[in-house]
């Protein structure tokens, strides 16, 4: 009940803007502090017995890879909000998340590649995990192109929501690709049945960095949602301005036409 009331309250963009203005500075500060702690722990982490110092790439690769899937999941919930509940902020949330998700996916691909060269001997391999993440990146780009191609935000929102929900099928494929197929990419080592296989010396920096990057996403997403609401206000005021101009134009040209007739 409480959650429903909160969601209803947040349906009002003005209330949402007031809320973001209050919490964004705190979120940004918490993100900066956690990132600083995470980076310090990553720097101080010992070398792995197999990977050596290259294990440090994992502390930024894994959070970005995790967020690449998490952001699409957030967009899928927002897509349901657009199509089923018609929540006024659902498509704002979906549109604002896409470029941020694309950036995290790009970083997951590139940092994975930079880790793969010294560890696997190759920057790229067309295995199930790498290929499905590349498809996810292309889907993010496609979604961003769709938002830009349709000028009316509400029409774009419905098309984008359908595409997002269809694309959501890729998320379990990415997650379980390492179990379903024989891949070069190693299986899950943190979130798995029977607990993490990582030593605490690596697990703690990884968890702190994962929380820091998640907070970074929440901060950037709220700020981007605020921008999108302002952009729509600009659009509606511009339309009011245009209709005034055309009304004034018609009013001044009207008598001339009558006179001409």
């Amino acid at each position, binding site marked *: 009940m409480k959650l429903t009331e909160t969601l209803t309250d947040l349906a009002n963009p003005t209330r949402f803007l007031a809320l*973001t203005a209050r919490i964004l500075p705190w979120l940004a500060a918490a993100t900066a502090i956690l990132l600083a702690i995470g980076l310090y722990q990553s720097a101080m982490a010992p070398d792995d017995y197999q990977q050596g*110092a290259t294990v*440090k790439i994992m502390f930024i690769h894994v959070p970005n890879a995790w967020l690449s899937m998490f952001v699409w999941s957030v967009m899928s919930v927002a897509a349901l909000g657009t199509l089923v509940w018609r929540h006024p902020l659902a498509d704002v949330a979906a549109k604002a998340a896409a*470029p941020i998700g694309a950036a995290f996916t790009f970083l997951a691909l590139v940092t994975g590649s930079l880790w793969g*060269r*010294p560890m696997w001997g190759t920057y790229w391999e067309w295995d199930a995990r790498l290929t499905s993440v590349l498809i996810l990146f292309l889907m993010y780009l496609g979604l961003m192109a769709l938002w830009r191609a349709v000028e009316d935000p509400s029409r774009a929102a419905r098309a984008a929501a359908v595409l997002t929900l269809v694309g959501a099928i890729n998320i379990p494929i990415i997650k379980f690709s390492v179990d379903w197929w024989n891949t070069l990419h190693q299986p899950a080592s943190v979130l798995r049945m029977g607990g993490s296989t990582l030593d605490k010396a690596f697990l703690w920096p990884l968890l702190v960095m994962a929380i820091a990057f998640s907070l*970074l996403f929440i901060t950037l997403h709220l*700020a981007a949602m605020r921008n999108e609401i*302002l952009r729509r206000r600009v659009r509606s*005021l511009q339309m009011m301005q245009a209709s005034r101009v055309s009304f004034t134009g018609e009013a001044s040209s009207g008598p001339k036409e009558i006179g001409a007739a």
Partner: protein
Amino acid sequence: MSLGPYASFIVTSYALVTAVVLLLIVWIVADYRRQQARLKEIEASGVTRRSGRSAADIR
């Protein structure tokens, strides 16, 4: 802290993540300023919201 023989891969990874995250932050902050400026410009021309409140006021 020694980064071993693959230091360039590690440094490039961290530098790239820093650059992309900074780009995202700069893009979002610049976009916010651009929208605020456009709202103020439109309001200065006499077009206001039906509520009468300033569209640029987010508090």
